[in-house]
């Protein structure tokens, strides 16, 4: 019998090792696996490389890992607070300015496509995005048929932390509205995708047409009663 459900958040994250590359879903306040991140804070893994679109979102979750010195490097498209009146990335700014964390700024769609390449068994790929800009510095470039391209490397994860709406015990997932964002590609790009859901439902109760991440890409699901 195939059962990917785990009983507790602690069980879901217990084997994340020091030095792991961790793909973390979420865009703004939607789709953030906050409870898994808090469980990882308790678990103690260090020297992490985190891939997340933002530099944390408010004081709980990723920001706590930054302040605790557990993240060595952040790969990110937008590490600033989008709205200065509501500083969502204040903790990241603090550790970054103190020189305690490395930042790799990546165009958002390239971050996505690098993960997709890793997930799909592809090698590096040429993209026109960032050609001629300082984000292409140090990368191989080529002009093909008169158009400039930058060579981008696949971006696999050791683990992914993702939030979805529903899962069954095989790990089939559905998401709610824009909470989907990076979830599907991060599940596909990680060796071990760990998913927190609002509800674990009986096998077969997510209509096959409505499964947004097929269970083959998911290793563990854990139900979180009330997501923050």
């Amino acid at each position, binding site marked *: 019998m195939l059962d990917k459900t785990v009983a507790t958040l602690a069980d879901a994250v217990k084997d994340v090792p020091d030095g792991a590359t961790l793909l973390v879903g979420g865009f703004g306040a939607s789709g953030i696996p906050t409870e898994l991140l808090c469980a990882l804070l308790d678990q103690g893994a260090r020297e992490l490389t985190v891939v997340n679109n933002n530099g944390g979102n408010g004081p709980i979750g990723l920001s706590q890992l930054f302040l605790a010195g557990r993240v060595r490097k952040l790969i990110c498209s937008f590490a600033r607070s989008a709205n200065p009146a509501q500083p969502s*990335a204040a903790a990241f700014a603090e550790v970054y300015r103190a020189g305690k964390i490395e930042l790799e700024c990546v*165009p958002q*769609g390239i971050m996505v496509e690098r993960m997709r390449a890793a997930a799909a068994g592809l090698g590096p790929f040429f993209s026109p995005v960032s050609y*001629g800009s300082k984000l292409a510095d140090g990368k191989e470039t080529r002009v093909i048929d008169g158009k400039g391209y930058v060579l981008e490397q696949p971006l696999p994860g050791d683990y992914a932390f993702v939030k979805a709406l529903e899962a069954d015990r095989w790990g089939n997932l559905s998401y709610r509205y*824009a909470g989907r964002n990076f*979830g599907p590609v991060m599940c596909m790009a990680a060796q071990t995708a760990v998913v927190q859901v609002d509800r674990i439902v009986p096998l077969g109760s997510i209509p096959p047409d409505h499964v947004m991440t097929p269970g083959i890409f998911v290793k563990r699901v854990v139900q979180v009663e009330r997501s923050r």
Partner: protein
Amino acid sequence: MSDYTPLSREQLAQRIADDLPDGSYVNLGIGMPTRLARCLPKGREIILHSENGILGMGPGGDEITDADLINASKEQISLIPGASICDHVVSFTMMRGGHIDITVLGAYQVSADGDLANWDTGTPGAIPAVGGAMDLAVGAKQVWVMMEHTSKKREPKVVERCTLPLTGSKVVDRIYSDLARIDVTPHGLVVRAMVEGLDADTLQELTAAPLRFDPQVTVLRV
């Protein structure tokens, strides 16, 4: 000396929205361009895209009431009938693959040949943050820029060559400023419309790149 009044941000948003064609798929950048969502012309179906997987975005309230329905500026939005949701792979396929008809972006500088600088002010110590701007700049069918004609220090933002870090090279098709609508053409910058009372010499003085003037230049008004 000409006597003129620049368009307000609301008027500029209205003017750009009025130029969006019926049936077009449009992405609005963060900041000023999000104002367009509130003033789309009635009687046209304009389908707004948000990079976080939303096609068919409608206006929302001032408070966040549902965090799973937000736009790229992290503001509350709604879905219109016919809306769809997708993940980031599909959303950026729309953006980068030439499927979005028009993106309206803010800018710090635009050059005479359409280079765009809109992600890095070059301020020492600023945290680099690009978001989806570079994907949109190379991938949308048309890039329209919405900005004030000069900076707060009255420095021209339309320039011969950008001095700030580039978002994309030769990507801008059209500039809407609070003073003029200017097209980026293979023959340089061509002014299509100017606000009432502004003369060509004054506009040129406020612009650090040579301007040509459409013989049928019109008044930029709402």
